[in-house]
């Protein structure tokens, strides 16, 4: 593995006393796409929140681009290119598509964004057509596209995607994953959370299988796709 963008050592994360992630250890190399798969309530979202710093009650050590993350606020992490596209998209409902995208570049402090907003809109033609529309009026799939475009304009070094296919029509899932692939080809490091294991394994280099807050298994995605026994563990049959 080349230099690690993210290295996680015995990370646990808590909501009050409830432990949602327990002793997770893994690394992500530069340019790698790693997926996290596991059932409902396994702790996938909590893991991403711990990494983005929005779930702050944690133990263990996270290093992001060589720096210990514990002292970094969520804002500081975003400024360093650690970008988290949250579960349920979380677009700014009463702002327009364009304004949402513009906010994706907030941490970069660049003056004129109009050119970059154009290229972000160009990723998804449906967004281009709806650029002046309020984000809250978009369909689920369109909102997911917006969340992706908003992340891309932030120039992610490590992009964390939480269930981009959830509640999205299959055609739009394909469109969204086309852009995930494009980002992979550009060398963006990605941590992808999906409940849909087939999609996740088909779009990643390696996989972490998580259940009850613990990482149960780490393997190459291609192997997991072939391996019947592990497929049982993953797909739950």
């Amino acid at each position, binding site marked *: 593995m080349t230099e690690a963008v993210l290295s996680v050592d015995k990370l646990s994360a808590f909501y009050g006393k409830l432990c949602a992630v327990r002793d997770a250890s893994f690394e992500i190399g530069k340019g790698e796409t790693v997926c996290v798969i596991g059932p409902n309530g396994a702790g996938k979202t909590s893991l991403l929140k711990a990494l*983005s710093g*929005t779930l702050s009650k944690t133990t263990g050590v996270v290093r992001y681009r060589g720096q210990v993350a514990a002292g970094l*606020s*969520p*804002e500081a992490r*975003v*400024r360093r290119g650690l*970008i*988290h*596209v*949250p579960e*349920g998209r*979380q*677009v*700014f*409902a*009463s*702002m327009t598509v364009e*304004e949402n995208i*513009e*906010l*994706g570049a*907030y*941490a970069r*402090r660049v003056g004129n964004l109009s050119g970059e907003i154009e290229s972000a809109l160009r990723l998804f033609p449906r967004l281009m057509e709806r650029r002046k529309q309020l984000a809250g009026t978009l369909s689920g799939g369109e909102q997911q596209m917006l969340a992706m475009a*908003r992340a891309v304009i*932030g120039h992610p070094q490590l992009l964390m995607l939480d269930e981009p296919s959830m509640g999205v029509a299959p055609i739009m899932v394909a469109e969204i994953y086309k852009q995930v692939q494009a980002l992979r080809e550009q060398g963006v490091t990605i941590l992808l959370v999906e409940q849909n294991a087939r999609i996740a394994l088909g779009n990643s280099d390696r996989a972490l299988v998580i259940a009850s807050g613990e990482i149960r298994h780490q393997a190459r995605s291609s192997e997991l796709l072939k391996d019947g026994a592990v497929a049982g563990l993953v797909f739950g049959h």
Partner: protein
Amino acid sequence: MFQQVVISGITVGAIYALIAIGFTIVFSTVRVVNFAHGEFVMVGGLLYAWLTIVQQIPLALAIPLAIAACVVVAWLSYELCLAGMNKDNHIAQVMVTLGLGVTIKGLAQVFIGKDTQFPPSFSSGSPLMLGSMSISQQSIWIVGSLAVLLGLLWAVMQKTRIGKGMRAVAINHYAAVLMGISPKRAAIIAFVFAGLIGGAAGALLSPVASAHYDNGMFLGIKGFAAAILGGLGHPIGALVGGLILGLVESLTAGYLSSAYKDAVSLVLLLAILLFRPQGLLGRALPNKL
């Protein structure tokens, strides 16, 4: 007479609107109803009076100084009292702002005094005559300031990076954090605006209604009522709520009796809360996730 009543209603309403904006901007970014806000307004008026009457400082200096002091008071209020609190404990936050209000009032009483002061108008000169109506110079200052401050606020919120960030925090706090926006910074700026606009409201009002350390609660309640009336969290709502409240009070005082004006505005407020709890311009909270 009707025209004169309307003019006085608009003047008072403009003050209520200025106070309401402070409630609204803090509520939308920090999710706290700041019950100390009326005291910011009181401090603006009292300091303006103290600077002009006791210290004999020229108006052109006294006005910005009084407002700047209010900004500092508002900023310190946030920094010392609210910044470190658990943001989900709303009851505790409300209690803290109430305590803060009492503290500011006490400090004003001790350091500036208990006397009622009558500071000078911003400009001396005869009232403007429009037909049979006479509009005092201070009324023009009040309404003009409302227009300028609202315009300024609008420009900051729509056009600047920091303003867009504040709107983002107001709309979706979690997503705003994920964009790298600091909610704490947004909160500080919200309080700075509340201090600025509240202090200006206090200074503008004091030549008309005098300045006294005990005025804060009353002014706060009026501004809060205006904010609720228009829709808390909605800047245009603050304007509309303030003007309606001012006009209703003025019409009641003019045609019924000034003894009823608070009662009538209270009934209006109750009716709104009953039939349109989100306020006139506020949108109903969506129930969907």
